[in-house]
């Protein structure tokens, strides 16, 4: 097996120059959603300067629409698939597992030359059975976005918030200063479990083991994360809402900060343009002083369909995601946080951002990427999230005595849904 892979790698290496010799050409269709599609559209002229023979057609559709269409096209044997499509990391394992024949393996196209350019945590979900089905795009390094003016009014120094307990203390100070009207952050209580996932990954724990073969959600790292979410919740310093409400809280000043993935930068910047200069970021608090202050939530990648015009599709994907020019251009335009490690050295990343009160927010967020612990969303992410949103909600409401007990119940339910064993 090993020698076979070696031969394949050698062959790939030998054919690579030949491929480079005939320039890719033809028309490719690329599917993306919202700001991601806009960002891809934005870089087409620069891509065409290098590859004039390729015509790129970007189609922008809603997140759910795209998900449903890819599922339908793949279920129909790849009919009507675009050449390139965006795939959310957490939904990736599901696609590879259910429709492996629908996507092209990127290794023969030359992926190996890019493998070291992305952090490990971004690649785990995108590979299965020794194949690489997608290239990482943006990531969601978890950070705290905060309102400088509101923190100042309450006498909170963001630089002094090093641990979650500091965060809670700051929240209480904020409550006291505002009569409980302004909260520290927003939790999607009962509709999602993102707070739990952000803190679990920070703590090196996740729903599943890295090999995706067992359920690890009942491990101590996760229990500690869940218990900490409850500490924050019990302090009464969180707003409850969903995505739309969270944006309202930002607009109306009902939230002085938000804990979220780096890609939330673009949402704040575009929705609250009138608050320019009043926002800033600081690293997510640690579990204990000196502990890890890095985690990830969300993020996407680009996959190539099995039926695609592969040379042209690969040329586009490797330009868009595998070069600093492509990634930085999309970050500038729509705030997508590059997963490409070398992007951190780009001059733009080191620039002061006027909206963020002159802070170098990109450098601050990107420097956490190497410290993010890898995790594997597996094909059963959706099932696990469905279980966890209920269990986390019930635990916060006091329906379980301990986090450990809650997570054991969750692990059994995830086992029932996925058929995977619960890790000891």
């Amino acid at each position, binding site marked *: 097996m090993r020698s076979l892979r070696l031969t394949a790698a050698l062959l790939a290496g030998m054919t690579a120059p030949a491929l480079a010799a005939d320039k890719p050409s033809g028309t490719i269709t690329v599917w993306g959603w919202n700001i991601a599609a806009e960002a891809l559209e934005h870089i087409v002229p620069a891509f065409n300067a290098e590859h004039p023979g390729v015509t790129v057609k970007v189609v922008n559709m809603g997140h759910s629409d795209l*998900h*449903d269409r890819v*599922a339908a096209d793949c279920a129909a044997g790849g009919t009507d698939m675009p050449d390139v499509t965006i795939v959310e990391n957490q939904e990736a394992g*599901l696609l590879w*597992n*259910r*429709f*492996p*024949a629908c996507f092209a393996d990127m290794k023969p196209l030359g992926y190996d030359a890019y493998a070291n350019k992305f952090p490990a945590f971004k690649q785990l979900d995108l590979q299965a059975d020794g194949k690489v089905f997608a290239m990482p795009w943006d990531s969601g390094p978890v950070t705290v976005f905060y309102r400088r003016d509101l923190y100042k009014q309450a006498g909170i120094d963001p630089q002094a918030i090093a641990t979650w307990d500091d965060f809670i203390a700051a929240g209480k100070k904020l409550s006291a200063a505002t009569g409980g009207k302004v909260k520290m952050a927003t939790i999607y*209580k*009962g*509709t999602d479990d993102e707070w739990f996932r952000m803190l679990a990954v920070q703590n090196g724990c996740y729903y599943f083991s890295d090999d995706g073969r067992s359920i690890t959600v009942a491990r101590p790292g996760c229990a500690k994360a869940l218990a900490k979410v409850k500490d924050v919740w019990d302090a009464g310093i969180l707003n*409850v*809402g*969903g995505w739309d*409400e969270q944006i*309202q809280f930002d607009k109306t000043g*009902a939230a002085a900060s938000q804990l979220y993935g780096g890609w939330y930068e673009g949402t704040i910047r575009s929705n609250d343009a009138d608050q320019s200069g009043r926002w800033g970021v600081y690293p997510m608090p640690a579990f204990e002083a000196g502990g890890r202050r890095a985690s990830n939530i969300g993020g996407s990648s680009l996959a190539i369909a099995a039926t695609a015009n592969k040379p042209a599709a690969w040329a586009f994907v490797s330009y868009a995601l595998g070069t600093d020019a492509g990634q930085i251009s999309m970050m500038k335009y729509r705030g997508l946080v590059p997963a490409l490690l070398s992007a951190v050295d780009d001059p733009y990343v080191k620039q002061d951002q006027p909206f963020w009160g002159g802070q170098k927010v990109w450098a601050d967020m990107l420097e956490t990427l190497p410290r993010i612990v890898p995790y594997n969303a597996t*094909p*059963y992410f*959706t*099932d696990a999230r*469905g*279980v966890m*949103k*209920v269990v*986390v*909600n*019930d635990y916060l*409401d006091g329906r379980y005595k301990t986090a450990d007990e809650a997570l054991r119940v969750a692990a059994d*339910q995830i086992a*029932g*849904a996925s*058929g995977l064993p619960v890790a000891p």
Partner: protein
Amino acid sequence: MRRSAVAYGFLFPYLAVFAAFWAWPIVQSIVYSLQNTRGAVPVFSPSANWGRLAGDPVFLRALGHTLAFLVLQVPAMLALAIGLAVALNAPALRARALFRFAFFAPIVVGEVAYSTVFRLLFNGQYGAVNKALAALGIAGPDWLNEPVSAFAVLVIAVTWRWTGYNAIIVLAGLQGIPRELYEAAEVDGVPRWLQFWRITLPLLLPVVAVAAVLSIIGSLQLFVEPQLITRSGPGGATETLGTYLYQQGFRAFNFGYAAAIGYAAAMLALVVSLAQVSLFRSRT
């Protein structure tokens, strides 16, 4: 023989569509429900889905919510619809056509549009409902984030949308009751409420039965409102068979399990409808 061939010729376009878009999916989904559809290749394994169904706490909760909705919302809505129909049928009512349209109008509004508006109305912090309650000195609940109130919002929303529709059905039934019966009752000196009880209600039963069956099937399929207004939350408190089916089929791509959930709901609809029809038949 030739005549029937011609008849089938005319029927063919319909039969072809029926076979392709109705019969085939119905049969195919039975097949799916018997397969483990989690991998690239479906594997025959009846216990994968049907076995999971019986022990799946999320399915049982969704079933419980659906049944609770059926038991609480359908009778309340039908009682309201009957009252509304009687009012709309009152000879003294002016601008009758306007009122009839007004109560029927909610059904004209798109499901997604009205769901979005309800989500905004019942927003705990900024919603119009709580602002109105506050003006009356009542502190409204955080509607969408408490299990009981979130469920109540669904009941209110569906009732708002469908009561007028059912009232129109009942109204048609009311107008089919011969006037002579009431005239005879008047002559015999039967009071109004007794006329309603002894004449109107019994003669309305077949129409109410139809409205009830339609409403019950509607509640078993309840999807748009819990999906869009409450997002099946908080903590799955408004998960219904419809939202769970969608979640399994189109989010988790587990078509086999989704098909099994769909068939469970269909069987339930069949049982409830049969019970209902036989109940009304024995009474009339």
